[in-house]
């Protein structure tokens, strides 16, 4: 079946990307912040186009791409992230580089990459989509090219990215060798058809794939690039990295692991659980020692990845019902996490635009000079820590609850312990903002209206999900549904003992 309509939203995005690059190419004096707004509008169009796909019947494009609620969910998420990041960048990027059109164009392209990572049901497509996202990010991270840190971050990112995608590919090749196909459905059937016992090729292949996607979502020990890349990247890109890139990684993992590898879940679930445990512990412990905000957020998001990985392990341990519940909860958590992160970065960007400092002490006395930003930052951080009435509380609770199986209770316990540790370093930030007086000029200053509104809207979102998670949860449940109704498996798991 070739239904090209399913690509319409991305046509809009990619087309706009080209258009934006074209504008600056032919009209170099065009105001840079307007480019941002154009990007936001384009992404809004993309978002709106995505809305039409809600609830439509699943549609597969030649077995490569599936257009279903899962895809739509990530499409909306991607578009939303791009809107926010573009708006965030408007003032931030205006003075820092000569040209910004490519920046916004790549943002849109990266978003498309994310959507196809979620939509891909075939290894090659998934790989290319992943590289599309990665390539865009390599460039975006190094976009401040006169900045030493930015280019260093970019170099580390691309070399490690290439290294780990080689691993990823080797794993794919082994799976291909075993099953003779690269379609997820075919892989599942192929694995199921191989009878009892598991080949070493399958095990090692899965481990290599795990390393590849683990790198993408920055799971320890494949996380090392993240702090450096986060620190070197421009602030809005850091936001993008910690939201879109992670969400995309999980989208791919969900598709791949539920659609293809679920059959031999016994061979990878322990590894995912172990990775989850290591990741969250490492991320949170190291985060305590950070003084740079971006690095701190990087480690904190590594910790978050640890929590999210538990659900993947739960998919491996539980039956289809557990898997679906866990995935819905994971999607909900991703939504909450993304919104909170974006709120945090919107506020941080506003503060950074004013102070130019990205260490924690730079926020000193923010509650005096800009109480609204301090409030948004606090809310975002408390949401990460899982305190009510913010999104993190409800979503984390649902996610862990969804992931609780007899085998995984210890990881869940560890996760809760970790989110407690995380509270410590979040409080360190809150402390700077609220407990100390600002240095130097103590007058109030104004936030640019765009960032203000952005932060306000996101903050409301954080509160809404936290207080009334029902509607979003229902949506994410629908989004997770197709993973388990996928054709071929008919919702029944062919899992080996």
């Amino acid at each position, binding site marked *: 079946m070739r239904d090209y309509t399913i690509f319409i939203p991305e046509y809009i995005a990619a087309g706009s990307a080209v258009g934006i690059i074209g504008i600056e190419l032919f009209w170099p004096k065009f105001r840079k912040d307007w480019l941002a707004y154009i990007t936001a509008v384009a992404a809004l169009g993309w978002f709106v186009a995505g809305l039409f796909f809600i609830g439509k019947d699943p549609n597969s494009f030649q077995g490569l791409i599936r257009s279903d609620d899962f895809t739509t969910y990530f499409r909306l998420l991607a578009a939303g992230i791009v809107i926010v990041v573009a708006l965030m960048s408007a003032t931030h990027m205006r003075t820092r580089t000569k040209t910004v059109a490519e920046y916004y164009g790549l943002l849109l392209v990266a978003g498309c990459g994310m959507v196809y990572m979620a939509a891909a049901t075939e290894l090659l497509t998934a790989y290319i989509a992943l590289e599309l996202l990665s390539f865009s990010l390599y460039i975006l991270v190094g976009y401040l090219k006169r900045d030493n840190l930015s280019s260093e971050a970019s170099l580390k990112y691309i070399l490690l990215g290439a290294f780990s995608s080689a691993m990823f590919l080797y794993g794919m090749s082994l799976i291909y060798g075993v099953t003779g196909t690269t379609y997820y459905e075919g892989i599942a059937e192929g694995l199921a058809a191989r009878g009892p016992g598991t080949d070493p090729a399958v095990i090692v292949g899965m481990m290599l794939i795990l390393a590849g996607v683990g790198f993408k979502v920055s799971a320890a020990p494949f996380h090392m690039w993240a702090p450096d890349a986060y620190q070197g990247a421009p602030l809005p890109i850091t936001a993008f990295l910690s939201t879109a890139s992670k969400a995309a990684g999980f989208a791919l993992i969900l598709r791949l692991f539920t659609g293809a590898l679920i059959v031999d879940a016994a061979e990878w679930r322990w590894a995912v659980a172990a990775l989850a445990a290591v990741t969250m512990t490492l991320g949170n412990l190291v985060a305590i020692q950070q003084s740079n905000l971006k690095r701190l957020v990087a480690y904190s998001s590594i910790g978050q990845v640890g929590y999210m990985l538990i659900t993947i392990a739960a998919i491996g341990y539980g039956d289809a019902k557990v898997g679906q519940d866990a995935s819905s909860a994971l999607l909900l958590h991703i939504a909450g996490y993304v919104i909170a992160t974006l709120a945090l970065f919107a506020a941080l960007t506003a503060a950074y635009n004013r102070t130019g400092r990205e260490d924690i002490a730079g926020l000193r006395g923010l509650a005096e000079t800009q109480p609204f930003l301090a409030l948004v930052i606090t809310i975002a951080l408390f949401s990460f820590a899982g305190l009510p009435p913010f999104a993190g*509380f409800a979503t984390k609770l649902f996610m862990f609850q969804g992931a*609780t199986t007899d085998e995984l209770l210890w990881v869940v316990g560890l996760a809760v312990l970790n989110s407690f540790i995380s509270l410590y370093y979040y409080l360190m930030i809150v402390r700077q903002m609220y407990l100390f007086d600002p240095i130097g000029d103590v007058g109030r200053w104004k936030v640019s209206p765009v960032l203000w509104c952005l932060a306000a809207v996101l903050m409301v979102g954080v509160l809404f999900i936290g207080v009334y998670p029902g509607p979003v949860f229902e949506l994410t449940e629908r989004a997770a549904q197709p993973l388990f109704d996928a054709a071929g498996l008919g919702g029944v798991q062919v899992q080996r003992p």
Partner: protein
Amino acid sequence: MTFDEGQGYVVLATIAVPLLAALVLVFTPGHQKMLVRYISAVTGAIVAGLSIYIFAAYQLDGSDAQMRLQWVWVENTAFLGKDGITLNLAVDGISALMALLTGVVAFAGALASWKLDFRNKDFYILYWTLLAGVYGTFFSYDLFFFFFFYELAVMPLYLLIGVWGSTRKEYGAAKLTLMLVGGSVLIWIGIFAVFHEANLGTFDMEQLWAAGRDGTLSPTFQKVFFPFMVVGCGVLAALWPFHTWSPDGHMAAPTAVSMVHAGVLMKLGAFGIIRLGIQMMPVGAEFWMPTLMVLGVIGAVYGATAALTQRDFKLISGYSSVSHMGYVLMGLATMNQIGVTGAVLQMYSHGVMTALVFLMIGALYDQAHTRDLKDFGGIAKVMPLWVIFYGIAGLANVGLPGFSGFTAEFHIFVGTFRSYPVFGALAIFAAALAAAYMLRMFAIVFFGPFNVRWSDLKDLTPLERLSGGMLIASIVIMGVWWAPFTDRVGQTVTLLPGVTG
């Protein structure tokens, strides 16, 4: 709308009014400090009124949960089945009393903060948020909302203490917050385990309690996870050896926060032990209660002993809180009706009297800016009313008949004696120590030669008299005529699983 439904809305309003107040305050200009105060005072009055109504309207007809209001929040989504999460509010005898406590203390605390001038808007926003959390926890019959409100009550503390506190406030605030949240880590784990084990797809507490009673939560499971719940809640209830946030936290906290925290918040811990421990895992409770008894006794004696030589008012109160909460835990650990009722009464009693103590400490500290006992002497000369108020609080603390402390401790002692006579004797001994440390403080501070350094001290302000008077009234009423209290609490306690006659 039937009458009972209407009452459910009263319960809802009790939670909603503080939240609304916080919301209104968010949009109040920060420099309108008087307006902020009036809003808070009115809120406090309304909340207190609603609380008193709830307490009074609780029917003594042998039924348990009353004034129910149930709104479906999330259901039939993912692992949540029918009634997955409901905003299920109701009142039982225990929470009716706790509501009364909260109302009185909250109102008194709001008035006590009248003097506060530094960013008082922010202060009250956090203050009312905290109280909404407290009420929510007391009224929630849904595990999700129970925990939601429980954490909501803990969350504002860091800022309340960190920004408006005094001695070593950063350390105290961080330690307090982290320890309390650390405790809730265990509760989280417990909640996950319970939901998973019960496999009912609902957070509805009554269904989960039924699961605990009928063995859906297996005995082994209950034995394993009971400590999670109890230690988790116990941190907030200053369960020894997880109590050290109490002295430091109270030392750092501003007056109203100390009042609410020691007065109400610590009770959430003990309340949690009832709700999540005794009611949810009766078998586990039976298995673990002797251990809790030992810890409670240690806490009671240890706190009283440590308070004996402290030099800071708030440290004395901090340690005495440890001691008194030790009684609460002992009462709960008896697992008989008298002891558990006594524990609940003690929760109330300790709440009001500690609030009064902290109110008085605040009234002095605001003027003197020191809390070292040795700096004072003969304060009765300049602040006679203060001395009387504090004296009443102190004597209630000591467990003097006529004050609530006696009523509560008496029931606890009786209950403990019934099951564990030796521990009962130890607890009574600790009560004698309470007399020692309280009177030591009285002797040093109130009496003796007057230190002229303090001749400028003013006696209580009218507002402090009002809030103190309310608290004293609460103390005395329960101390003199405790039937209304025991009737309500007893009605629920007799229905608790595993609690013997």
